[in-house]
């Protein structure tokens, strides 16, 4: 029951505020409270090289680049330090099976942290 109800509730709240696309693996806290799935290229690890001189999107010229907004918010908003530290983390590829499910449930069950067996990152060492 909850599994059916929660996606509706989550979408009703997050759609008007963040234009939520229900990817089911929410990373808003680590991206300056800006949803990377609203980037036309759905880039989860930073902006592409096509950002225009005025800071707008390559694909939608009258929209500000999602990542420009995210970076500004990360710098200027009084967000928790730990959230800001997560900004430069390498976010794994989206699990397409979670599309449309509630990220709240996936957070609690840690389903949103499951990655393919081969996935590993070099974060922190270089």
């Amino acid at each position, binding site marked *: 029951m909850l599994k059916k109800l929660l996606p509706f509730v989550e979408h009703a709240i997050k759609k008007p505020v963040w234009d939520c696309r229900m990817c089911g693996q929410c990373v808003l806290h680590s991206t300056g409270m800006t949803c990377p799935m609203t980037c*036309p*290229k*759905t*880039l*989860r*690890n*930073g*902006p*592409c*090289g*096509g*950002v*225009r*001189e005025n*800071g707008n999107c*390559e*694909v939608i*010229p009258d929209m500000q*680049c999602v*990542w*420009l907004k995210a*970076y*500004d918010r990360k710098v200027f908003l009084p967000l928790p330090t730990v959230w800001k530290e997560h900004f*430069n983390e*390498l*976010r*794994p*590829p*989206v699990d*397409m099976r979670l599309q449309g499910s509630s990220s709240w449930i996936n957070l609690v069950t840690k389903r949103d942290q499951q990655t*393919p*067996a*081969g*996935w*590993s*990152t*070099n*974060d922190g*060492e*270089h």
Partner: protein
Amino acid sequence: MSLMREKLENSNDTVFTAEFPSLDGGGMAKVEKNAARLAPWFVGVNATDNPAAHAHASNTASAIAMKMHGIEPIMQIVCRDKNRLAIQADMMGAALHGIENISLLTGDDVTAGDEPESRRVFDLDSTQAINIARIMTTGQYLSGRKINPAPDFYISAVENPAAPPFDYRIERALKKYRAGAKYLQLQICYHPDRLEKFCAGVAKIAPDLKLIPTIVLVKSAKPMSFMNEKVPGIDIPQETLNRVSAAADQAEEAYKLTVELAKHAMTLPAVRGLHVTDFRHDDSLDRFMYDLGQKPRN
């Protein structure tokens, strides 16, 4: 070991790279002709992957053809047209033919091309793709399925030093380095101050990451205006455009500007070479390379 790796990791040589012209008709004769022009000067040459969202002979097929003609390919893979399965297949296909230089890019959007009605894929972003290439060098696919022996990729990426958000570009370079990129080819940049800041920033936070800025040979102000107006991410200051358009000999002035930009770029920290592109087979390539103090390779 790829020559790109050998030169960048085990020598102090300045490394010049170029872009192989996109292949459509003309078969191997065309490849041979282009290879002959580029071989004397370049350590590695990019085999592009549907550049500017226009379909051409595939990245893998082009890279194999280049290799057959004595050119070391740097095989680009963009995230726009292929999902994670196809991207890994591209990389293993390259490895099968002894192609080790792999460059992972986001890719221009489909709206930049001549088939804007296409579905855009972007199943991965460039940094994830770089990381997956690195994972493959440890002997496994993303799924964890073993690859034995592991491919010996020399991984690279691209970055735009002159597009907003400027400060974040430096952090993003570090992110790509951590994911597995050993060097970055940079987007065309007509703002020497921005390039300077970017290179200094990268040298500070990712000292082992090598940078290869791009220089484009143009014959007049026209292609410059085109880039300025039509290519998102490239901005050319008005005074730079004026300098070329107001000159009595536009070709000569554009050439002088290019040499100035190239010489400046080569002095910057973290810079280990230059990526040279041209618009429609500019005939000033040889002169340009000699003016930078280079000699043709044997």
